[in-house]
Structures are given as structure tokens and as C-alpha cells.
């Protein structure tokens, strides 16, 4: 059993921490999210220089062939800094989908993704998905000129920044059928693709994509014929399972980072703010709230580790359950920490100008991606039954 970062992980954590402190302080971030793009290409370039975008990419495509565990401290730092760069979308989700799929699209797109020059976003959820295990209404058809897809994907995180999308679509069957689906790569400039850009409630750039007979390239295991894949769904399931695991592990790390930031702000505030002639941190009610926050934060921290370990070892006995447990625990406890942190601040915690509320907004968004805590409880109940 080992809970410590290795030397490389420690170094990366330190350098990413310094980078974000220098370029993504809360004031700098406010300017970034107020800009037209809502993110900073320069900041993403610097993260790429440190190797963040290359971490999960195989060495053959110019990456480090790393694991989620290696990204854990980086994603915590991004969460704490409320960073709006497409790290989750591209460096985690896009990279994982392409890596598991392999083949020509992976060879073509992963080198640029690793360098940070290409952003590949994950376009899987649909307006009707909510927290369903699987819901794909988007259709794919094979015509004389190749595949085309039609349908709506929402929300697509970092959609405005992406040059390519990994899109799930259905060749046969009902929206919740596990067979009859495949993943496709669609270029952002493809014909018949409409993009409506917006911001999530935590300022993250996102898009709604509407496909109308849009040309698409099938993404599948090179060992299997893309055409035969929909019939057994094996390649589709393999990609989906890996991306779900990576997404859950990444969001758990991100939420722990955001909750940790809220916790730090609250503790600092308890030690400076005076009312009724004394520090508010002398009040037992607030001291106990701080202790509750620490307990929640430590539970969340443990399960973020468990999620990363599970995502890296999907074959291990506890992995499937640990991912669900982790998303449930981190979702609940990180939210709890942020809510307590706002309460510790009083009125100032309620303002847009102050960071602590943004931590709750970040956690709220992360909790809703890849299934919220209630959905994880439902899935875990089914798995344990």
C-alpha cells in the first residue's frame, strides 16, 4: 500500500502549482473568463510545455504513456485554481478515447493533442441523457461517401476550443440499447455541423453541437472492422468504459482541488475576520464547522486516490465499485465543504468577486458530469446487488 507521489509526480505537481500561481491567480482567472474565449490559449500552451497534455498519450504518439495517477495532482491543482482550460476535455477525455480506440485517428490526432496544439473534445451526452447510463439518439449512416451523423450533443465541455470531436452515434437500436453504437471523429469545420457556444455556471466554455448529415470518421479498434463493431458493441464499450473511468477520476481530483481551495479560504477567513470584538474563529460553532469540513475533505481526498488507482487498473476486483463510490463520495463531500466554506464567510462568500463561491460552482458542475452523486448511488446499488 502506498499513498505517496513518486518523484516525477511531485515535480509535476510543483511546476504546475507554480505555473497556476503565476498565471491563473483568482484575479488573473477573472480576466481570463471575462475574455471572449473564456480561457487563455497561452496558459494552455504553458500547461502543454510542462507535459500535462502529453501525459496520457502513448509514447508512440509523442506522449509519456502515463496514467491517471500521474494526472491526479495536476487535476487537483487545476480544480483549486478554477482553471477553465480544456485539460479535462482534451488531455483526459479526448486522449483516453483516442488512445483506447487506436488506429488511424489516434495516430493522426494524438501527436497534436500531446503538444497542446490540437484540442479534441468529448461529445457524448445529449439533451435526453441526464444521468442515464446510456442514451444515444444521434444517428450514424453509412452512405456511398462514407459515414454521416445527425443529432444533438449537449453539453460538450470546451467545445468552442476543439478542432475535433469524438462523437457517439447510433447505427441501430433504441436510444438506451448498448449494442448498435460507435464512436466517430468529426472535424469542427465539417459540413452540416452547427455549434452554439455558451458558458457553464462555473464559467467553463461549452457548446451544443447539432449534426445534420455531417461527415464523420468511424473510430474503432484497428483489429476489428468498424462496420462489424456496432453488432457486438465491444469496441464501443471498451472506449466508453475507459473514458467514463478517466472522466470520473479526473472530476474527483478536480473537485478535491476546488474543495481544498474553499477550505483554505475559509480557514484563513476564520483567522482574520473579527466580530463582537473577537476573531470569528473563536466561536465553537464555526470551529466545529471547520472540523466537519476537514473530515469531509479527507474522505474526498482518499476516494480521489481510489478513483485514480481504479481507472488505471480497470481489471482489479474493486475498480468498478471504487469509481462509483468515489464519484458519490467526492460529489457529496466536496459540495458540503464548499457550502460550509461559504457559510464561514458570511456575506462576502456570496459575492461574484470572491473565490469561495466559484469553488461551489465548479464542484456543482463536476458533480453533474459523468453522473451525479444520486446516479452513482443508483449504479452502485445495481453493481452490489
Amino acid at each position, binding site marked *: 500500500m502506498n499513498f505517496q507521489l513518486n518523484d516525477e509526480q511531485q515535480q509535476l505537481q510543483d511546476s504546475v502549482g507554480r505555473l497556476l500561481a503565476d498565471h491563473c491567480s483568482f484575479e488573473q482567472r477573472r480576466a481570463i473568463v471575462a475574455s471572449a474565449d473564456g480561457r487563455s490559449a497561452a496558459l494552455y500552451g504553458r500547461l502543454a510545455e510542462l507535459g500535462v497534455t502529453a501525459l496520457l498519450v502513448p509514447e508512440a504518439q509523442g506522449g509519456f504513456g502515463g496514467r491517471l495517477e500521474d494526472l491526479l495532482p495536476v487535476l487537483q491543482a487545476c480544480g483549486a485554481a478554477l482553471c477553465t482550460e480544456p485539460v479535462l476535455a482534451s488531455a483526459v477525455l479526448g486522449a483516453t478515447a483516442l488512445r483506447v480506440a487506436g488506429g488511424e485517428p489516434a495516430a493522426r490526432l494524438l501527436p497534436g493533442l500531446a503538444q497542446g496544439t490540437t484540442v479534441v473534445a468529448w461529445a457524448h451526452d445529449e439533451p435526453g441523457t441526464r444521468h442515464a447510463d446510456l442514451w444515444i439518439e444521434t444517428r450514424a449512416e453509412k452512405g456511398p461517401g462514407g459515414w454521416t451523423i445527425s443529432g444533438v450533443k449537449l453539453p460538450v465541455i470546451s467545445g468552442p476550443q476543439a478542432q475535433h470531436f469524438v462523437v457517439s452515434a447510433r447505427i441501430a437500436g433504441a436510444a438506451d440499447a448498448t449494442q448498435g453504437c460507435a464512436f466517430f471523429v468529426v472535424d469542427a469545420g465539417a459540413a452540416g455541423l452547427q455549434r452554439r457556444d455558451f458558458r457553464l455556471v462555473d464559467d467553463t466554455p461549452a457548446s451544443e453541437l447539432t449534426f445534420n448529415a455531417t461527415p464523420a470518421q468511424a473510430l474503432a479498434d484497428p483489429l476489428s472492422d468498424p462496420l462489424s463493431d456496432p453488432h457486438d458493441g465491444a469496441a464501443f464499450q471498451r472506449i466508453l468504459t475507459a473514458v467514463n473511468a478517466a472522466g470520473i477520476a479526473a472530476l474527483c481530483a478536480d473537485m478535491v482541488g476546488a474543495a481544498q481551495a474553499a477550505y483554505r479560504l475559509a480557514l484563513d477567513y476564520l483567522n482574520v475576520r473579527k466580530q463582537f470584538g473577537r476573531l470569528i474563529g473563536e466561536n465553537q460553532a464555526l470551529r466545529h464547522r471547520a472540523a466537519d469540513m476537514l473530515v469531509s475533505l*479527507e474522505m474526498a481526498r482518499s476516494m480521489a486516490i481510489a478513483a485514480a488507482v481504479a481507472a488505471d487498473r480497470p481489471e482489479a476486483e474493486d475498480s468498478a465499485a471504487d469509481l462509483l463510490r468515489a464519484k458519490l463520495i467526492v460529489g457529496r463531500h466536496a459540495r458540503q465543504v464548499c457550502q460550509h466554506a461559504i457559510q464561514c464567510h458570511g456575506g462576502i462568500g456570496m459575492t461574484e468577486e470572491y473565490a469561495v463561491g466559484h469553488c461551489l460552482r465548479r464542484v456543482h458542475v463536476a458533480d453533474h458530469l459523468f453522473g451525479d452523486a444520486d446516479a452513482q448511488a443508483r449504479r452502485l446499488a445495481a453493481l452490489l446487488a
Partner: protein
Amino acid sequence: MNLDFSAEQRAFRDEVRAFIRERLPAEIRERLRLGHPPRKQDTVAWQRILHERGWAAPHWPRRYGGADLGLAERLILLDEIYRAPAPLPQAFNTGMLGPVLLKYGTEAQKDHFLPRLARLDLWFCQGFSEPGSGSDLASLRTRAERDGDDYIVNGQKIWTTTAHLADWVFALVRTSTEARKQEGISFLLIDLKTPGITIRPIVSIDGEHHLNEVFFDNVRVSVANRVGDENRGWDCAKYLLVNERSGIANVGLCRERLDYARELASRITEGGRPLAADPKLKAEFAELDAEVRALEVTNWRFLLDPQAQQAQPAFASVLKLKGVELQQALAALLARIDGPAGLERRGIHGVPERHGPLSPRYFYSRAASIYGGTSEVQKDIVAKTIVG
């Protein structure tokens, strides 16, 4: 990072499991599974079986009846005992007094008491709390006055768990009122058969007798039975309270009770349907499963990773707070699952039948956030390390 035990540790787990499977009397296991607490004879019988391997006091040196086990092995052993379920080694003997004697006891005290504590030839109880002292332990007033080679002890202890079953008590007594309240306390071992001692039962909200008042009226205790120096008993008490933390989170207990809750829910029907099919209950099981796992990983992280301990000096309080919360949630859940059929009043040591005493156990579970430092005191301890 990884969350796996090593091959040696897994082999040890298999060894413990096989030992328990072979040696734990079925009747004891069944009683505990149904929710009965272990009776004295159950604890004694099982502790003597564990003692054959040194597992009654696994963290002690072998020469005193321990097994010199490392922390990871102790966690594994404890987990397996809980999950069996089997009675835990008597905690006052092995978890509290034993370590204090190992650190502060004289050679004669160690040679005499430690083997008897490990084998449970002597049953010790703890005489710390007093009327009015509560969580402010150091305000205790029971006094011991020197008379030649003896102390004369006068005063009263309260909440003394198992005093009515015990042979001896280890007690904190005031030997000086001159300095700070912590500096006038001594740590005495007192034979409960000594003239002048009266034990009165306190019946708790489960309708049972676990707790007692113990009165000392001119009780004569040899100075040879003082542990540590005179007026330095607070050192022993502090050491006792922080020394043995491997069991503080009670992870294995939570896991075993959750398993039993699932089992019980699958056997009980409501309107002709198994209770286990209720979606709300299923979600609750899942949520508790996730919480117990988070506690388990946190327990490993805090106990096995020195860096995590350094980063959070109040880690033991964190573990107790969360462990107690889950323990109480599970006790309440079990009583709810048992439902109206569990309302019939029965003694907790009754004959095992389908319904164990789950409602009384729920009532008594409320004590977990009061003893060993209330949850409010634990939060004060945590807050001191983070708020200042």
C-alpha cells in the same frame, strides 16, 4: 500509489481468516451476527484462543504474550475479527493498560500483569470519569493520600463500563492539589475486592447494565501498584488515549454491520415483497458502502502513511468522528430494517433467535459519540490544529 496489501500481508490475511474459520465457536459468531454484544464468557473464551498466536495483544512483545505485529498486520487482524464477527480482545486490558505498562510500568508490574492481561486472567476496567468531570477529565477529584507504603483512596468514579464484571480497575486519582490540575494526578491499579469499594449499576437507555458507579471509601492501595511517578499519572492517561489508534475508526465493524443489514433486508418482507427491493433502501446501502470505503481508505492513509499523519496531526479525531457517525448510522439503519418485529422488549443477552436486539443496540450506539472524548471534543481538537 496503490491500495493493495503486499503478498506477505495477503498471506497473513488468509492465515487469520483460516484460523478464525476453524476456531471461532459457531454460537459466538451467530450471536454477534444477530446483534448481541459478546458476553463476558464469549470474550474470555475467544481471547484465550487468539492468545495462542499472540493475537490477543498483537502489538505487544512476544515475551509478554503479544505477537510483535506491525501496524498493517494489526489492521488486517482487527478487520478479520470484526468481519467474522468475533469478539474483540478486551480493550481495557490489551489496548489501554497494556501499552501504558509497557511504557511506564516497573519490571515487576510488567512481569506480573502483562501475561494476565493478554490471557484475560484478570479483567480490568477503566476508572477515569467522575461525576461532574465529563469530558474535562483532568478536573477529577477522587483523592489518594499517602499512608506509609499505601495510598488511602476516597471518591467516586462513574460510567465505569464492565466494573461489575471486572477484577481490577486502573484509575486516575488526585495525589496533589498544589500545581496545575493535570500535574497532581497519579495512575493506580486497584483490586476491586479491596475493602471499601462499592459498585452500583447504572442501567442505560437500552435497558441493560453495562455501566457502573464505583465508590471508594478509605480503600487501601499499595504504592507498588502505582504506574509511573507520583503526580505524573496524566502522562500515562494521555499516552493511553493516543497510543492505540488502529481500532479507532471501526471500519471492520461498519463493513460487517452493513453486510448484515443487506442480509436482513433480503430476508424480511413488506407487503409480500423483500425489503431489499426498495429503491430507497438500495440507494442507502450504496451510499453507506461508499462512505465505509472512504473511511477505510482514509484509515489506511492516516495509519500507514507517515506523510499523511504529519499533514494532519488530529488524524485520530478525524477517524473517530467519521467512524462514530457511520457506526451510529448503521445501528439506526439496522433497527429500521428490523421494523415493528424488533420492538418486542428482549434482553441483549437473550437466546439467539431471528431478531437480535437491534433496537437496544441502536439506543446504546448513541454512546459512541460520547465516550472516549465526545464528538464535540474531537472537533475542538481538530479545530485547534487548523483554525488555531
